[in-house]
C-alpha cells in the first residue's frame, strides 16, 4: 500500500469511527463551496448540453427549424397586427363625426352645442367651423375673389367636427351620432360607421385567430421540445441512472436537459426572428400599399427589438417547460424502476 492510499485509508477509518455519518459528511463541504459547485454545475450543464446538440448537427437543425417555423407564424401575424395598429391611429381622423346645422341657426347656438359636447366624456375634441369661415375657405380654395358674385348667399352651414375618443367602439359611435341628430337645429350628423365597423371586426377576428394560432403552435413547440428531450434522455438513460445512484438530486440530473430545452427554445426563436425579419422585408411594400389605402402614412413598428426579445423569452420559456416535463417523466420512471 502506498503512502497515499495509507492516508486515505486512515481517513476512511477515522470517518467510520464518527458517531453520525451523514451530518458530519455533509458539513465537510462548506456552504460557499456548495454554491460554487452549484454554479459550476450550471455552467457545465450549459456547455455539455450545447456540445450534445453539436454532436448531432442535422437532427438539431431540423428540430430548430420546426420550432422556428412554429414560433414564426403567430409572431409574424402579431407583428402585422401591430402594424395594423398604425391604421387604427389614423382611425382617429377617419371616425370624426360631422354635424351640419340648419343655415338659420346662429353661430352662437352652434357654439353652445359645441361647449356642451366638449364636456361629454365620449368626445375628445370639438372643432367649430362657422358658416362664414367655411365659405371664405371654400372661396379661397376655389380661387374665387368674391364668391358672392356667383352665389348671393353663403350656401354652407355652420359645422361641428367632433373627434370621439379612440376607446369608443363602433356601437357607441353610432349611438353618439344618433344623439347628435336629435339636437335642435342639427340637420345632418354624419360619419362612416360601416367602415369603422368593418375594420373593428377584421381586427378582432385577426386578433382572435392570432391568439388561437399562438396557443396551438405554442403547444406544438412544447411537444416538439418535450419529445426531442425525451429522445435525448433515452440515449442517456444509463447515465441518468448511474448519476442518481451516486446520490445526485433530481435537480442535478434534470439540469443538463433543461438547458437543452432552453437552447432549443432560444435557437428556434432566433430562427423565427430571422423568418419574420425576411418575410417582413418581403411583405413591407404590399402592406404599405394596403395601409396607405386605409389612411395610414407609415409602416413604422416602434417596438421591433422589444418584440424580438419577447419572442426569445417566450421561446426559451417554452423550451424550459417542455424539457421539464420530459425530464420529470423520466425521473419518475427511474424511481419506479429503482
Amino acid at each position: 500500500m502506498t503512502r497515499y492510499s495509507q492516508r486515505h485509508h486512515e481517513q476512511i477509518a477515522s470517518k467510520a469511527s464518527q458517531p453520525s455519518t451523514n451530518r458530519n459528511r455533509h458539513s465537510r463541504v462548506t456552504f460557499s463551496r456548495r454554491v460554487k459547485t452549484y454554479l459550476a454545475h450550471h455552467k457545465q450543464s450549459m456547455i455539455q448540453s450545447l456540445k450534445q446538440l453539436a454532436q448531432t448537427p442535422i437532427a438539431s437543425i431540423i428540430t430548430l427549424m420546426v420550432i422556428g417555423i412554429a414560433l414564426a407564424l403567430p409572431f409574424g401575424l402579431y407583428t402585422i397586427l401591430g402594424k395594423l395598429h398604425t391604421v387604427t391611429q389614423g382611425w382617429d381622423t377617419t371616425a370624426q363625426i360631422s354635424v351640419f346645422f340648419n343655415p338659420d341657426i346662429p353661430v352662437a347656438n352652434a357654439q353652445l352645442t359645441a361647449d356642451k359636447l366638449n364636456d361629454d366624456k365620449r368626445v375628445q375634441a370639438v372643432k367649430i367651423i362657422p358658416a362664414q369661415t367655411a365659405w371664405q375657405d371654400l372661396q379661397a380654395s376655389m380661387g374665387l375673389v368674391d364668391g358672392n358674385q356667383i352665389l348671393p348667399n353663403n350656401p354652407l352651414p355652420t359645422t361641428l367636427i367632433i373627434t370621439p375618443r379612440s376607446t369608443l367602439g363602433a356601437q357607441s359611435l353610432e349611438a353618439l351620432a344618433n344623439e347628435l341628430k336629435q339636437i335642435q337645429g342639427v340637420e345632418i350628423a354624419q360619419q362612416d360607421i360601416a367602415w369603422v365597423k368593418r375594420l373593428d371586426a377584421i381586427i378582432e377576428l385577426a386578433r382572435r385567430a392570432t391568439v388561437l394560432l399562438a396557443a396551438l403552435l405554442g403547444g406544438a413547440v412544447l411537444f416538439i421540445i418535450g419529445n426531442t428531450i425525451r429522445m435525448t434522455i433515452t440515449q442517456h438513460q444509463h447515465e441518468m441512472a448511474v448519476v442518481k445512484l451516486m446520490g445526485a438530486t433530481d435537480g442535478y440530473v434534470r439540469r443538463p436537459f433543461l438547458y437543452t430545452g432552453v437552447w432549443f427554445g432560444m435557437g428556434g426563436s432566433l430562427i423565427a426572428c430571422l423568418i419574420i425579419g425576411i418575410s417582413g422585408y418581403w411583405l413591407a411594400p404590399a402592406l404599405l400599399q394596403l395601409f396607405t389605402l386605409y389612411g395610414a402614412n407609415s409602416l413604422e413598428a416602434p417596438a421591433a427589438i422589444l418584440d424580438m426579445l419577447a419572442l426569445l423569452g417566450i421561446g426559451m420559456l417554452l423550451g424550459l417547460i417542455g424539457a421539464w416535463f420530459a425530464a420529470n417523466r423520466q425521473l419518475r420512471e427511474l424511481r419506479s424502476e429503482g
Partner: protein
Amino acid sequence: MIEFNHVSKRYSNGHDALTDVSFSLDKGEMAFLTGHSGAGKSTLLKLITALERSTAGDVVIGGYNLSKLKQARASLIRRSIGIIFQEHMLLMNRTVFDNVALPLEIAGFGPHEIKRRVHASLDKVGLLHKEKMLPVVLSGGEQQRVGIARAIVNKPALLIADEPTGNLDPVLSAEIMQLFEEFNRVGVTVLIATHNLLLISAMQNRTFNLTHGRLTIDSDSEDIAA
C-alpha cells in the same frame, strides 16, 4: 449501521420481494448476503440505498429511518453509502478519472479536493496509471476496481456490493474480496450480496441467507434457521 425491523416489500405488481425481515449489522461489521436468484437480495440492497421504500417495517441506516425520508433527503443519504454493482455501472464515455470523480462532483467538492481523493482512491485499487483511459479498454476485473474506487472515493462508512465478483474468475474475485476486507479492517461496514458460496466459506464472515423473501439464516443467531 444497518437495522431492519420487520421489513416487508411488496411491489406494485403484487410480488412480495421481502417478508418480515429483521436483522442488524453493527458499525465495522462485514457480512454476506446470499440466496437464490429472486430471493430478494437486490430488493434488500435497494432498501438500504433508499432506491426503494419498504411497504412495512423500518429500515434504519446510520441513524436515519429511510421509511420516513423524503426523496431529496434520500439522495443525500445515498452519498454516504458506497455502492458497487455487478455490471459496474460505469459511464463508458468518460475517463476512469471522471467516473471515480462523479460522486465527489455530485456532493459538491472543489476540483483540487476531487483530484486528491480520486488519485488516492485509484491508487488504492491499483489503477492510478490508467486514470486517463476510457473504461471500455479495461478488463472486467479492472472495470470492477474502477467501480470500487468510485464507491470508496467519498469515504463512505458503509459499503454495499451487489454480486461484485459475479463476472470475475476466482483469482480476480479473491483480489476484490481482499480489497473489501482491507476496507473493513479500517472500520468500514461492508455488506456483500453474492451467490459465490465458495468465497463465503473461505472468509468466515457473518452470513445472511434469504429464501423467497424471508431471512432463513443469520450465522450469528442460529435460531432464525427455518
